[in-house]
Every structure is written in structure tokens, then in C-alpha cells.
């Protein structure tokens, strides 16, 4: 079944609003000629008169999981204004596209695509046929890099974190580059974070906003060192577990275990959807509800990170849909859409991971619908009713030094109360979780919760049912668990607290 052309699709493919606007202008201008479609609407093609003498040739193939958009104009990557205009024209009036047999050339391209996709799926589904020599070579490079990483960790430990000055940190950044070249981008990132924390912000930078730097770099020395130590533990665990995974790779072990997949992920493995599917990391007919949306600039990764926290309305898992947009290509990569309507995903890849697994889907798999009251009933029903159980899950995660230090969970709130300067979520059993912005927060939300919850009181008590999306985090000064509020849902009222 071809991808249906609707507003969801248009939203999903548009990278720049201006391009869509210009595309609509071209439609108005009558710049399109010879607009055609296949009888099943799986292929659109036509011509658009641009500024040159010859019209651009356009086609949009809607047969696969993602639309294949082609245009002979020089704008790359697609979609350009010409193809967006054609899509908008089809959405507005499909009748202006004459039904016709597809040109041979497009059919050939389509069959090549299908072939490629099938091959990809086949390759992904088949037990990996490894080019042993190439893998051995790559693995040796990675192993050597892990040896270097071990040496770096040990040298840093021997000299002491407190002696990491600007010069040493600069060297670490250079060595991080070597990790990157040795196919260990995950290790490179952890090293860069360690180096970024080693350099304290100068006084003359005091006016800059906290988001522009690695969170935590401006903390008091003892807390900053504790944060650096956490990175050091992670690097050490990467060295040890990374070696094991690389050895297993060389042994051609079939079906990599989940935790090892996590290590691979941390080492910098780039998953493709087909590979996720082949490895069984796939779910069908997901019903997702976006509870929170975050966007920030990560200076260490040199990327803009845009992520949505999505509640699986059937299991209660909180998944994360994450998009990385390199600073160098911000203009060329699509900004993540925030979803204010519940999503129905036909099939999605779920990354290996911990509490919050990353989710990804093809454009064709996505459909949205209006919010109904039943969504909120499901939402509250899926929220963790018991704080103790939520904390147990979190503790299980942070015991693994490779796991993220935080986890996002939706927890039922019998009430929210003031606890000195902070707030506390209290569950039905009376157990309280202190809510506080982490010192490394990209943005603060505690006061937003105080305001949002304060506006939803009945006789001084929070209206029910109420659920709070919280980011659990481990305090730096002690080993206490805190929560940072991200979204509050009171009955059918959803308030996003962060950005």
C-alpha cells in the first residue's frame, strides 16, 4: 500500500517552511506541467519550469516506507521547493494529476529501489556474512584504540583529575579525535565531555547562558570532579566491556545479546532500521503520546539535539524519539516536529538500551489522530502507580556504569507538595520524591511545575487523576535520587514544563 499523501506526510518531509511556501507559489504560478500519477497513487511525476530554459523533472515515489523524492534542480538534499509544491498540489487537488502509465525510467528506478530495499532487508535478516578480513582489520583498529583509551584513563587516574588543566584537556580532545578515526565515536564523545568539564569557565564568560556549555562545567570543584569521575568510570567500563564485545564480533557470534548491543551502541555503532528489525528490536502497532519535547545545543557533540518523550499507551514505557542535527548542517536537516496529537505507528525500531529506549520509524508508518478522552484514561492507567517500583527500576539502570545517569518515567502523583525550596511528588502510599532541577540541567522546570500544579488545586490538593513525567537523577553532592519534572498531566489537561 502506498504512502498516503496527507498533512502528516507533508509535515514529515518539509525541512523548511519557506520551501513549502515557495512550492505553493510555483503551483499558483502554473509552473507545473505534465503532472501524472499512477492509478494507485504510488507514484507522482511531472515537470516544473524553473529559472532555466528546460523544466526540472520531478518524481515522488510513495511505494516504499519513505517517499523517494527526486528533482533535477541543483538543490540537494531533497525535498526542494519544486517537489514540495508538487506534493502540496496533489494534496489540494489530486484530479489535476492525470492517471498514466509510469515512464520506464521511473519504473526502473523504483525496481532498483525495491531491489535495494529487499536486499537490505534480506541482508539484515540473514545471519551476518562477515568479511572476516575487513572486520578483523576494523576490530584491530578498535582494539588498539581501546588500548589507547585504557592508557589515557590510567594516566588520568595516576595524575589525578584535579591536575587536568587546559593543556591536558586539549590533548584529550585531540586524542578523542583519534578515537573517532578508529571507529569509536562513543568513546570519543565521553573523552570530550571529560575534557570539557576539566576546563572551568573563565570569569569573563560569566554572562553567557548555561546552555551554551557542557552542563556542570561551572559547578564547584568538588561537584565538578565528581561529575568527571562519573565520565571516567564510564570510559573504564567502555574499555573493559568494549574489548569483550569486539572479541565476540571476531568470533562471529550470532544474535548479539542486548547488553552487548548497548555497549556497541556506546562505542558508536550506528543502527539502521533494517538492522534493528533484523535483530528483533522492533514493535508493531505502537500507540504513542508525546509528553515532553526538548531541544538543546550540545557543544561537545556539536549538534543540536531534539527529542520527544513518548509514552507507549499500551505498555507504559517512556520512549525517546531523538534527532541529531549537526551544527554544520542545521540548514539542511529537518527540525524535529513536536507531536501534539497521539501517534499510531505501524512498525517502529526500538534501540537496545535501558529504561528509555530510542524509537524510530519510517515516514510511511506514521499516522496521527486527534486526542480523545480515552487517551488520558490510558495515560494515567499506564503511569507508574508506585514510586518504590519506579525507583527500583532506576537503581537497576544506574548500577550499570555504561547506562545513562538519568531515566524518564511517568509516575502517578497523589499530590505534589512544597518541600522547602523544592517540591515533592507524593504517591498513593505516601512515599515522596524530592523534585529538583539537576545542577547539570539544560533548562530548569521546577518553578514551572510549581506554577502549573499551583493552578490545578482543589482545596489545596492537586486535582486527580494526576501523573508527572519526571527525569530521575542522582544527586552529585550525595547519593540521593531526585526528580526533574518534565510534564504534568492532570485529568485531561497536559502541561509541558520544559522545552
Amino acid at each position: 500500500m502506498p504512502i498516503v499523501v496527507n498533512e502528516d506526510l507533508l509535515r514529515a518531509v518539509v525541512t523548511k517552511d519557506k520551501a513549502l511556501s515557495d512550492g505553493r507559489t510555483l503551483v499558483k504560478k502554473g509552473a507545473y506541467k505534465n503532472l501524472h500519477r499512477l492509478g494507485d497513487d504510488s507514484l507522482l511525476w511531472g515537470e516544473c519550469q524553473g529559472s532555466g530554459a528546460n523544466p526540472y523533472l520531478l518524481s515522488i515515489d510513495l511505494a516504499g516506507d519513505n517517499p523517494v523524492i527526486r528533482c533535477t534542480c541543483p538543490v540537494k538534499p531533497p525535498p526542494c521547493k519544486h517537489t514540495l509544491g508538487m506534493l502540496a498540489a496533489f494534496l489540494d487537488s489530486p484530479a489535476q494529476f492525470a492517471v498514466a502509465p509510469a515512464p520506464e525510467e521511473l519504473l526502473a528506478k523504483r525496481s532498483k529501489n525495491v531491489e535495494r530495499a529487499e536486499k537490505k532487508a534480506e541482508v539484515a535478516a540473514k545471519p551476518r556474512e562477515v568479511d572476516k578480513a575487513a572486520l578483523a582489520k576494523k576490530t584491530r583498529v578498535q582494539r588498539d584504540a581501546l588500548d589507547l583509551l585504557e592508557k589515557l584513563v590510567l594516566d588520568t587516574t595516576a595524575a589525578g583529575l584535579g591536575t587536568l588543566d587546559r593543556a591536558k584537556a586539549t590533548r584529550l580532545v585531540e586524542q578523542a579525535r583519534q578515537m573517532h578515526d578508529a571507529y569509536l565515536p562513543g568513546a570519543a564523545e565521553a573523552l570530550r565531555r571529560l575534557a570539557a568539564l576539566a576546563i572551568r569557565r573563565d570569569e569573563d564568560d560569566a554572562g553567557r547562558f548555561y546552555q551554551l556549555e557542557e552542563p556542570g562545567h561551572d559547578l564547584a570543584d568538588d561537584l565538578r570532579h565528581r561529575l568527571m569521575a562519573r565520565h571516567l568510570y564510564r570510559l573504564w567500563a567502555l574499555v573493559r566491556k568494549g574489548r569483550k564485545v569486539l572479541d565476540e564480533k571476531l568470533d562471529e557470534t550470532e544474535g548479539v545479546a542486548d547488553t552487548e548491543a548497548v555497549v556497541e551502541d556506546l562505542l558508536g555503532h550506528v543502527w539502521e532500521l533494517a538492522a534493528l528489525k533484523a535483530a528483533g528490536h522492533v514493535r508493531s502497532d505502537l500507540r504513542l503520546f508525546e509528553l515532553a519535547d526538548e531541544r538543546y545545543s550540545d557543544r561537545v557533540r556539536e549538534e543540536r539535539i531534539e527529542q520527544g518523550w513518548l509514552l507507549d499507551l499500551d505498555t507504559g514505557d517512556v520512549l525517546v524519539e531523538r534527532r541529531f542535527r549537526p551544527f554544520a548542517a542545521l540548514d539542511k536537516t529537518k527540525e524535529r516536529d513536536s507531536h501534539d496529537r497521539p501517534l499510531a505507528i505501524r512498525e517502529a525500531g526500538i534501540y537496545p538500551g535501558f529504561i528509555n529506549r530510542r524509537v524510530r520509524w519510517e515516514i510511511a508508518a506514521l499516522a496521527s489522530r486527534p486526542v480523545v478522552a480515552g487517551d488520558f484514561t490510558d495515560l494515567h492507567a499506564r503511569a507508574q502507580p508506585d514510586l518504590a517500583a519506579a525507583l527500583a527500576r532506576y537503581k537497576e539502570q544506574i548500577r550499570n556504569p555504561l547506562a545513562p545517569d538519568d531515566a524518564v518515567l511517568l509516575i502517578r502523583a497523589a499530590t505534589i507538595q512544597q518541600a522547602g525550596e523544592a517540591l515533592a511528588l507524593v504517591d498513593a502510599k505516601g512515599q515522596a520524591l524530592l523534585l529538583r532541577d539537576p545542577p547539570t540541567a539544560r533548562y530548569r522546570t521546577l518553578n514551572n511545575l510549581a506554577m502549573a500544579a499551583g493552578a490545578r488545586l482543589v482545596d489545596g490538593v492537586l486535582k486527580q487523576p494526576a501523573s508527572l513525567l519526571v527525569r530521575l537523577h542522582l544527586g552529585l553532592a550525595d547519593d540521593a535520587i531526585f526528580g526533574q519534572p518534565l510534564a504534568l498531566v492532570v485529568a485531561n489537561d497536559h502541561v509541558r514544563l520544559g522545552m
Partner: protein
Amino acid sequence: MPRDTIRRLGSDVERILVAGAHLASADPALTRDKTALDALATQLGAKAPVIGQLAAAVGRTLAASGADTARELVGLATMTAQVRAAQAQPAPAGPLTPLIPRPEIGTPCNAKELGELYTALVETGKGRIERVQQAIERGDIVDLRLVEPLIHAMNDGYLGDLVADQAIPRLGPAIVAPIRGIIEFKKGRRIDGRRLRAVVAADPANAHGLLAQALAEGSAEVRESALDAIADHVPGDPRFEQPVQALVAKERHGGVFRAALRALAGYASDASLAALTTALDDARTVEAAAEGLGNSRHPGALGWMLDRLAVAVVAAEAENSSTSNTKNTPVPANSVKPVDLVPILLSALARHRDPRIAGAALPLIDRFGDAAAQAVLGSGDPRQVAAVADLLAGDDRKLFAVAAQAAVRLAADQAFKRLSAAVTASDRDTKTGLARLEAATDQVVAAETVDPRWGPLALKQFDAPPEVLRQVLPVLGRLRERKAVKPLLKLLPAAPDLVQVAACGALGAIGGAGVLPGLLPLLGHRDWSVRMAAQHAIVALDDPTSVDPVRTLLVQADGKEDWTLRHLLRTLERRHPGK
């Protein structure tokens, strides 16, 4: 106490990690930790095998030498961190109290707009002030998630005042707590004063404690802002009278002193009045004192000012007549010349409403012009206001604005008679007549209600000279006079530029079918001001069907980049998404 022992071990290990692994083998604290762990391992045995493993790891670290120390230490630290994580407990919440009820703040911004606004508020770059200003006008700024960035932006030299004065107060009492917590009093700078003003503006009813603290402990900048906030938001609050008077008595900082005089206006006591009258004789404080007297609630303030005015007028006349004789007479430092004091006093009197003012100010209109007329206007006596309104029939162009202001305060018939006379006057196309007409129509357009008789009158002016017509057309827009659409559309193509600008404004305000096609051709007008007027009018129509024709025009403007059209299209697309 395994937890305490492990926490101590964790701290010791981290201390050594920071200082360097070479210190590990001789570290007495680590040795103590080993002893404690050994004891615990014996005590707990198989119940907690990890304790034994930790004790062994500590032992290996203590025994290691050279390069092995670092390896053992980082291994021990990693294992300790894992155990500590497993033992982590929720932070003690302490005593819990109910939440404070807060007014609701919505979340109207979508994620992309939020991101743009966030960037405008916290990062540097072009166009920030415009973006924030537009968000304030749209009301999007009142978004819960922008509270933190707004608080941050108060610190911004470029945006700070805009945010503090126009955005923060819109968030109401909900914004108070987070700002209040970061105000520095003793060493407070301008930004702290800005924060203080914003907080008081947002929640004046609960600002007493904050203001009292600012007056008692604050730096000069904070005190000045506190006094400004008292004058603007809690004038006359009896709790501040004594502290403000005390400041006036001892304050040496000029800015604070002037602000204190403004704040004193709210008090009706003799002491407050005396402080203001004394300050009126000093050139450094005369303006602030006059402003205070103008707003003073003291029952005797008006009488005192009238007496002082009479004395000043006499002195000014005397000074005028003997200018040449007194040229070399030494003048005390910082004294106020009578001729300067009179208009200042008249401006202060203009803030009061009392028939006596007119008696004193009317004779001064010839010499002190607008200031005297404004004072008469403040009297509130219809006959005296009418006397000022009659100045509209005169020839003094400087007085037309105040005369028109006076006219609109009169009863409907009286007002219409005087203001409409400016439209029908025989000299209406002369320089004086046009100035009169402009003053009259400006007031009509700005008035809360417009006399319906203006409609037929304005409709009759389509044959008037262009300079007259451009002044009258805004009145039709203000009235949303449907009958004007047809003649407006008729004159639009061929009228002079200035008339076209006014006609666009009127059509945009009136709206309705047929208006859009009339406006569209003007988007390509050779004159920039006409193009902009047409653009604003089309936006003002707020009509979703306007997107398509504008896009059509853009298409027809093939071959050249038409920025007016492109900008208009973007604006309309934002207002009417999906069109």
C-alpha cells in the same frame, strides 16, 4: 552501617582520584575503610558478597605499586560507584506543606516558536528585540516555559527593560517567587532594581516585605527602583511613608532622592508636603518635586501650588521687565528661575482637577502656551475646558492639540460642534487649517467612542482637497463605516499617494467583501509608503482567503524579487497555516 561505610569509601576513593593514584597506597583513610569493610564482610558474610569484593579491591589498591595503582584505583572506584548507585535512596523530602495556589499560565507556543523565542531571549543575534516585541503583542510571551528565559533576559542590557516592563508583569503573581529569590539587595546593581520593579508590577498586593527590605538594605540602585515601584504600583501605602520620609531627610544619592520625592506624592501628611515644597526650590530636584506635587494627595498641595504659582508669575514678570538691570546680580547655586518654575508648576497643576486652576492658568496661556492650557484642562470645569477648546478656532497652531483634547472632554454636542468645525472651516486647506484639522481628527480617532454624526460628515468630504481628505479618512476607518467602502475603492487607484495611504488604513479597518481586490494592486505601487499601507491593511483584514491572491501576485511579479509581497505572504501564512 554498610551504607555509611561505603559512602565513606566512595568519598575517599574520589578524593584520591582527584589528587592522583600515587597517593593511594599510603592513604590512611583507605586503610581505615579496608578495616571497616573487612569487619562488615565478616559480619554479613554471604548475605552481601559485594562487601567482601570491595574489601578485596581496596586491599589490592593499597598493595599496588607503580602503574598498577591507577588500574586498581579506577577499578575500585567504578565498583564503589556501582554499589553506591544500588544503595541510592530518594532524597529526604523533609516537612511537606501544601502548594501555594497560583494563577494559571498557559503554554500557547508550539515547539518551534518556543525555540525561536527562547533563542531570542537567551542568545545574542539580530532581530531579537523585534521577535520578543511581537511575542508580547501576540500574547505568546505568556508561556509557562518562557518564565526561566524571561528571568534570564532581564539581565540582558539590550532586552532587559523591555522584558522587565512589558513581559514579566503579564505573567502576574506566578512569576514573583523565582525572581524574588535572585534579587541582590546590599550589592544590588541596575539589574536587581529592574527585577524588583518587575516583581512589584507583577504582584503589587504582596510586595510590602520586598520593598521594605529594599529600602532598608538596598544599594542606591535598588533603593531608587523600590521608590519608583512605590510611586507607580503602591502609591500611598501608609507602611512606606516613614521610610520614604527618612530617605528624603538623609539621602545623598541624587537619583534616590528624586525617586523618593516621586514616592512622597502618595502621602497626605504635612511632612510629606513640606519635603516636596522644599525640593521645589532646588534646580536639581525641581522636576521630581513638581511631579510629586502634581500627584500629591495632600489636601493643601493644590492651594500651595496656586500660591507659589502666583508668586512665581509676579517674579517672572518682574524679572522680565528688569532683565538688563539684574544681569550681573549673583544667583544662588541651584536656585530655580521663576520663568522656569512657572511652566513646571503649570504641568504639575495639570494633574489636578480643580476649577481654581483655570482661573490661575487661563491668563497665562498667552505667555506660557501649552503648559497653561494643559493646566486649565486639568481643572475639570466644563466652562473652562470649553474656553480651551475654543482655542481650536484660533490661529495658534501650538495650541491646537491641547484645544482638541479639551474639545473631546466636552459633552457630545459641544465636542462635535468644535471638532467638526475644523473639517468645514474655510481655511481648512491652509497650513493653519490643516494643523487644526489634524489635531481634531487625531482626537476623534483616538477617542473611546465616536459621535455617529462623524460618519455622514466624513462621507461628504470625498471631494475635498487631498490634504483634507487624508485627515478625514481615518475617521471613517475608526467608525468602520461600511458606506465608505465604495467611494474609497473608487478613489483608490488614482488618488495622490498620501490619500491612498489613508484610504488603505480605512479599508483595512472596515474590511468586508470587495476590499481585498481593491488593495491588492497597491502592493505593486511605486511608492513604498503606499505599498506598506496596503500590506498592513491586508494583514488587518485577517482574512484567510487573502493568502491565495497574494501568492498569485507574487507569481505575477515574475523575474524580480518582490520583498513586500514575500514578507506579506509569510505573515499571512503564519496567521493562516495550511493556506
